[in-house]
């Protein structure tokens, strides 16, 4: 029985200690790569059950992605609870403007005001109907962002987003 773990000097100079370490590191690497795939399927890097968030706030419910990726367009959807007014106001804090570039807003706001503390959007709605506003936006930069979203001046819903580079 030959010793497969011994170094050969001929025909090539081997380094079996290093080689065996490489094999061990490789196997660890396979586990890490598989873990990345599984985490991605679960939504750790956006779009999946780990990422989808629904926040029930005062006056509205917000659906968004907890994990975002830089430059990837994603949806924030705001569901207003039915009210008497024919106008609904949505206020998004400054962090939203800083970290996201708005690609489209559906329906178009009748008024859009950029103030010192963020973005104020006013939508025309049919009274006593549930209204949905969709904002498509692209994050840039990376890291954690906490966005405050107010419906009609009510206390804010906190949207926590992590942006991957």
């Amino acid at each position, binding site marked *: 029985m*030959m010793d497969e*773990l011994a170094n050969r000097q001929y*025909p*090539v100079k*081997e380094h079996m200690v290093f080689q*065996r370490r*490489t094999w061990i*590191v490789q196997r660890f*690497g396979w586990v890490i790569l598989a873990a990345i795939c599984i985490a991605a399927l679960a939504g750790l890097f956006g779009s999946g059950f780990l990422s989808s968030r629904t926040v029930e706030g005062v006056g509205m419910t917000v659906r968004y992605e907890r994990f975002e990726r830089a*430059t990837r367009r994603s949806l924030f959807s705001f569901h207003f609870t039915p009210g008497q007014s024919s106008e609904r106001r949505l206020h998004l804090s400054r962090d939203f403007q800083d970290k996201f570039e708005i690609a489209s807003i559906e329906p178009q706001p009748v008024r859009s005001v950029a103030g010192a503390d963020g973005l104020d959007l006013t939508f025309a709605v049919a009274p006593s109907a549930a209204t949905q506003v969709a904002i498509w936006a692209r994050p840039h930069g990376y890291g954690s962002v906490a966005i405050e979203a107010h419906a009609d001046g009510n206390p804010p819903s906190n949207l926590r987003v992590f942006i991957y580079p």
Partner: protein
Amino acid sequence: MDSVIKACIVYFVLWAIIRISGRRTLGEMSAFDFILFLIIGGSTQRAITGEDYSLTNALILVSTFVVIEIVLSLLDLRSPALRRVFEGTPTVLVENGQLMTYRLQRTRVTEDNILEAARRLHGLTRMEQIKFAILESTGKISIIPESDQPALNTAAR
């Protein structure tokens, strides 16, 4: 600035992934492996360039990659230990016609792979005709025939 950093990150992540995947995947590239590498290239390319398709960015990226290559090759020259880490080491897989099963299993090379290399490189058909089979650090299999069975190299035929 961020182009240089992105290029460095992509270089080392890709290097790590290719090293993790093992030499077996690299050397004997099938048609499908080739397509796979094109896809890997395509998916990383967009991450590096982003929305910046400028000539300046392309020049920055190409310069960064070439500089990394040069620096690594200079480091390789100075330190054999680093060379092992970056390039790997050759491993003998067949010794005097005997398959080294533990090594084959670790490197994910099969007996058929070795016989194929023996046929292709030296026109050998049996394991006993092989004195040494070596998996090189490039991922290719080299064959050294038994000396009493002179190699029928393709040029002689």
